[in-house]
């Protein structure tokens, strides 16, 4: 019964296009960090992790309905100079965190074994953002 508006294109909180391979890398990094490091799940915890400055990477789902729930995350992440990226599916983001429901956002606090993958992601992100 989802009455989502038929908006063409992506919602305006999506500030840049995240390449497909980077999206897949983000899912994988979240999965590894959740098993061996520390991940904050959900919009509320992610917001707090950004404001406390402890987030290493913020992942936001583009298909969040309504988009107002996550629209502030890129803004406050930019203010705190915390890197972020957008993934296509909140269901898949929830799955990579090992939870049964979708998740509109998450923040990697301690990458654990995902450290090398995280560094790769951050490097290609800074390339995209500076281009």
């Amino acid at each position, binding site marked *: 019964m989802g*009455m989502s508006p*038929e908006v063409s294109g992506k919602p305006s909180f999506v500030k840049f296009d995240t390449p497909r391979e980077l999206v897949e890398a983000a899912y994988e990094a979240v999965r590894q960090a959740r098993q061996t490091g520390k991940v904050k799940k959900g919009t509320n915890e992610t917001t707090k992790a950004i404001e406390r400055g402890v987030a290493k990477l913020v992942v936001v789902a583009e298909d969040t309905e309504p988009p*107002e*729930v996550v*629209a*502030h995350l890129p803004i406050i992440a930019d203010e705190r100079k915390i890197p972020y990226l957008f993934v296509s599916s909140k269901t898949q983001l929830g799955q990579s965190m090992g939870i049964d429901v979708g998740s509109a956002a998450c923040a990697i606090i301690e990458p654990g074994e995902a450290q090398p993958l995280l560094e790769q992601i951050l490097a290609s992100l800074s390339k995209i953002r500076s281009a």
Partner: protein
Amino acid sequence: MVNYTARVHLHSDQTFKSRVGAAEPRPVLYRHISQTWQDELKSSAPELKQRIIHWRRGPRVVRVERPTRLDRARALGYKAKQGVVVVRVRLSRGGMRMKRPVAGRRPKHLGTIKIKGNLSESQVAIQRASRRFPNLTVLGAYPLSSDGRYSWLEVVMVDGSHPSIRADTEFASRLPA
């Protein structure tokens, strides 16, 4: 694009009065959601316009999956659980439409215009939502947006006979005995 305002000022310790009574610190997330909504209203965001086009073609009273303004809905008692229902109501704007009297009067005393029902929009929205869903108890309503012809509100309702609601003690005082 939406002209989102900077959020630095939001870190101060604001409190809000919850509907239940005691003042409690308002979660940071809801301050941001509220701010986002205000920004979208102010800059008449394309998202909002697209939504209104969609709503205009929809039914007058319709159940929606999730509240459009999560901060307002939660303040009224909304929870993402079974038995809690959000309804969007479309109202025609303007005063009452009165019949022109049969006998002659001077224009001032025709009594066809400038006569209003003494009800707020949210009261009317609540009436119409509970007429559609008579088994649900109303927790409250909040405005969404309006165009020249209609205004839209969302009403938060709860099914008092649903097991998950009966098990939730926070709803107990707000349901009819």
